[in-house]
């Protein structure tokens, strides 16, 4: 930003705006939804604003595809469009689309006035998208805050339920604490290297001796991001928040912000070549996998169960970060994509079954679902099998790439912990499948017909899960391009 004395350089060019086109689209649609909300009565606001938000997220998807032709830096080297950012923009927009489709029915059933809900989802997506393309730590922090504040509010959207408000407040307090850590880490990093630009930091760290301050900076940034991705030991908020927040929001929270935070982590760890990476990650990954899976074993609430499972999955994902860049980066990106597909799908089913006031969220409420709704149960089964990591689902290849990347980096110990953990994990996912198929049907849980929006959401997630499981090559090759671009 040394060009401030030159007026011509201080004015952004058209190309700069293309670099943030999806963010612009999301912001415009978010604001339109917000402005229209007070002008409408509650009933019509559901339909129209939801549809508008859907159009917004699809437009962001298209903008991302358009933007992918214009790779490069923008806004005084603060954002960069590369295959990495395009990948995450696409992922976030796709997840947003599916979540909006899921929320459509959910909001009507819960009787929540939905206008600002959709606006917040779009603003959140804006922040997450920006996190993946920002290459300047201060901008990353701002993007992180945009996405976080939106999700804090979304977590408390079941206003009539005390548990939802509790979840929101808890998330907000701990979350702001964690972002403060991140900011502190950024400050120390600036002290250590004299810059907040990731590329400059990377060059500085590679060129000479690494100052002690840099290690501390990386550790503090990792605390902030570790909180966002729910990695142990920064995971304690997860089960409570997931239990209280509305089910579609949990589907959103557990995938899109997580993907964005992991994107930042990838940039910091690999593009900036953070020092002390392997051992820091080793410990956190092993801890997350183990605590997540062991915690999930004893859960009876489906949302809490998936909360612990998401901690465990953060652990598997981190295994990729301990590997070498050219295997680890694509493995982590592939994992995020397939985790997003299966988890959003699973939460779509959960939000359908939960019913008014989310009364039906325990394992018992799923008894006999296989008999009462064979199709719905079969879809949930496929998502769960994918979470276990059974072949021909995306979850299998996700684990496969991660573990084989770790093996190539000779992290045999970590792989063994991971493999044992996935064996443990199969138990609690199976419990749910067993309950669905091998218990007598419970007739007192109402099961409405699957509406169009939810059907579309399920179909998209299912298709993505299976696609990634049968033909993973294209997505992986695309992800591998990033590693090649970042190679120094």
């Amino acid at each position, binding site marked *: 930003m040394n060009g401030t004395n030159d007026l011509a350089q201080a004015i952004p060019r058209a190309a700069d705006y293309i670099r943030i086109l999806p963010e612009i689209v999301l912001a415009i649609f978010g604001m339109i939804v917000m402005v229209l909300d007070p002008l409408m009565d509650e009933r019509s606001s559901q339909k129209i604003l939801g549809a508008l938000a859907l159009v917004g997220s699809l437009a962001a998807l298209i903008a991302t595809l358009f933007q992918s032709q214009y790779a490069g830096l923008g806004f005084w080297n603060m954002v960069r469009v590369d295959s990495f950012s395009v990948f995450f923009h696409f992922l976030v927009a796709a997840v947003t689309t599916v979540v909006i489709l899921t929320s459509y029915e959910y909001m009507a059933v819960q009787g929540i006035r939905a206008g600002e809900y959709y606006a917040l989802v779009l603003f959140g997506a804006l922040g997450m998208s920006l996190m993946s393309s920002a290459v300047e730590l201060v901008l990353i922090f701002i993007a992180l805050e945009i996405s976080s504040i939106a999700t804090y509010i979304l977590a408390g959207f079941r206003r009539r339920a005390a548990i939802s408000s509790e979840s929101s407040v808890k998330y907000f307090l701990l979350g702001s604490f964690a972002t403060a850590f991140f900011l502190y880490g950024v400050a120390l990093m600036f002290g250590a290297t004299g810059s907040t630009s990731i590329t400059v930091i990377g060059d500085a760290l590679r060129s000479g001796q690494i100052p002690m301050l840099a290690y501390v900076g990386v550790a503090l940034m990792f605390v902030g991001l570790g909180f966002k991705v729910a990695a142990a030991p920064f995971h304690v908020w997860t089960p409570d928040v997931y239990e209280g927040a509305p089910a579609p929001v949990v589907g959103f929270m557990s995938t899109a912000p997580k993907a964005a935070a992991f994107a930042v982590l990838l940039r910091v760890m690999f593009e900036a070549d953070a020092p002390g990476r392997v051992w820091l990650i080793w410990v956190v990954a092993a801890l997350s996998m183990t605590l997540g899976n062991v915690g999930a074993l004893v859960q009876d609430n489906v949302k809490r169960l998936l909360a612990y499972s998401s901690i465990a999955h953060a652990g598997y994902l981190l295994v990729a970060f301990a590997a070498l860049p050219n295997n680890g980066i694509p493995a982590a990106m592939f994992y995020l994509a397939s985790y997003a597909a299966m988890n959003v799908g699973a939460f779509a089913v959960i939000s359908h079954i939960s019913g008014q006031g989310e009364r039906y969220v325990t394992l018992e409420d799923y008894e006999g679902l296989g*008999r009462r709704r*064979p199709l719905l149960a079969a879809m949930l089964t496929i998502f769960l*099998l994918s979470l276990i990591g*059974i*072949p*021909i689902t995306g979850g299998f290849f996700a684990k*496969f*790439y991660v*573990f*084989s990347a770790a*093996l*190539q980096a000779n992290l045999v110990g970590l*792989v*063994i912990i991971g*493999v*044992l953990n*996935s*064996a443990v994990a*199969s*138990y609690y996912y*199976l419990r749910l499948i*067993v309950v669905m*198929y*091998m*218990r007598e049907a419970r007739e007192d849980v109402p099961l409405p017909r699957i509406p169009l929006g939810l059907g579309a959401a399920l179909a998209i997630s299912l298709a993505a899960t299976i696609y990634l499981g049968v*033909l*993973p*090559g294209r997505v*992986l*090759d695309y992800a*591998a391009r990033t590693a090649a671009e970042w190679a120094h």
Partner: protein
Amino acid sequence: MSNALDNSMLTLITFIPLAGAVLLMFFPRRDRDIRVFALVVSLLDFVLSLHLPVHFQRAQTGFQYEINQLWISNPNIHYHMGVDGVSMWLVVLTTFLTPLCVLISWKSIHERVKEFFILLLVLQTALIGVFVALDLFLFYFVWEATLIPMALLIGIYGHGRRVYAAVKFFLYTMVASMFMLAAILWLYAKTGTFDFVSIQGAIHNGQVENFSGAALWLFLGFFIAFAVKVPVFPFHTWLPDAHVEAPTAGSVLLAGVLLKMGTYGMLRFNLGLFPEQSRSNASWIMVLALIGIVYGALVAMVQPNMKKLIAYSSISHLGFVVLGIFSFTQAGLDGATYVMLAHGVSTGALFMLAGILYERRHTYEIAEFGGLATPMPVYATFFLFIVLASVGLPLLNGFIGEFLVLSGAFRDRAVYGIVGATGVIWSACYLLWMYQRVFFGKIKHDVNLSLPDLSGRERAALWPAAVVALVMGVAPLLWLNAIDPAVQTALAPFAQLASKMVGR
């Protein structure tokens, strides 16, 4: 026969049941039509699978009917299938038993009929896939894929403690196969391929770095997955539970085919990829096999439950297979393969017979019966025939295999043969004693007086098994002349190994 047909034959045989299952999903819930359709599909598959032995080049070693196409480029996964003399017969065994399973489930499954036959056909595809897959990834995939339909068959259609049995079955085998997955991944990381033949070549030529250090662990990784499946003592505890709770068709496929996945895996992968480690670990494995033979037989003897008795007899019989495989002799391996086939037919038939009785009385307790030969003479005759086949009476199928295994084991070390031979005696004890208690003596329970004899459908399910048991006992060469070359190929590295040791 045209070459194109030969190339796609295995694909057809593997996926016809799956295609049938997919079609069944769109069937209206008219149970009778569903049963007929499942029967037609499985019979069609059986007829097609007969193409394999008919056109099999018996003089040729290596794999036949091969198909090898790139499936996924990263990781390097191929759609590679092929059969040799061993796996070909196991495929035919699978396709032979499935129509019988359909027949035997005709009446006993009357709820959720559609789902049952869908699961059965999906299971068949996965089972065939296990025997034809030559890409380790493909193999692992179908290996795991057998778990889900089988666990669901047990868990939904089983008896009292079905959920417990299903979950135990799933977890036991799933956890064990994780170790195999780890070994497969290690091999992939070092060789860059999943192809069985390429990996075998790379290991043989010493092109795998760090192999000597890891080989023992790799061997054990594969072995544990297979040992749980067989099951080798002490990994057997899931089997009696699974068998007792499973519906009849589930038991037939479980004993008939699923257990053979384990022994087939040992033969193909443990011996094929790690000959040296197989050699050096053979002694304790053979001891475990012998313990299995004797222990299984002794426990079978005291079972009050007919189905549990047959389940433990499976542990005993499969001990023979493991014993034969790790004797590394031509006779031992020939015999092991033959026992696999013979046990599939006769134990499959035993489970069908037990299931027929259960349909009439809803119990497996031996004490509930007695004197059944009077009301059910045809049934009693079939039962006796199959029991004798199972016991290993000469001229029936059990004899050939066990004889070959024992002669192989004897050649390896006399004491193995001697202890193994007692297993034959034990099996005569528990099976014939069970037969006596069920069919002879006075009728103790009045209900048993009026039990109906076999229906036409039940006879249709039992006749093929009985005929095959006889033919296998009289003309074993029909099978052995295809098995022989495959076994020779499997043993080739051991001959070299022996000469290497002598050379030192």
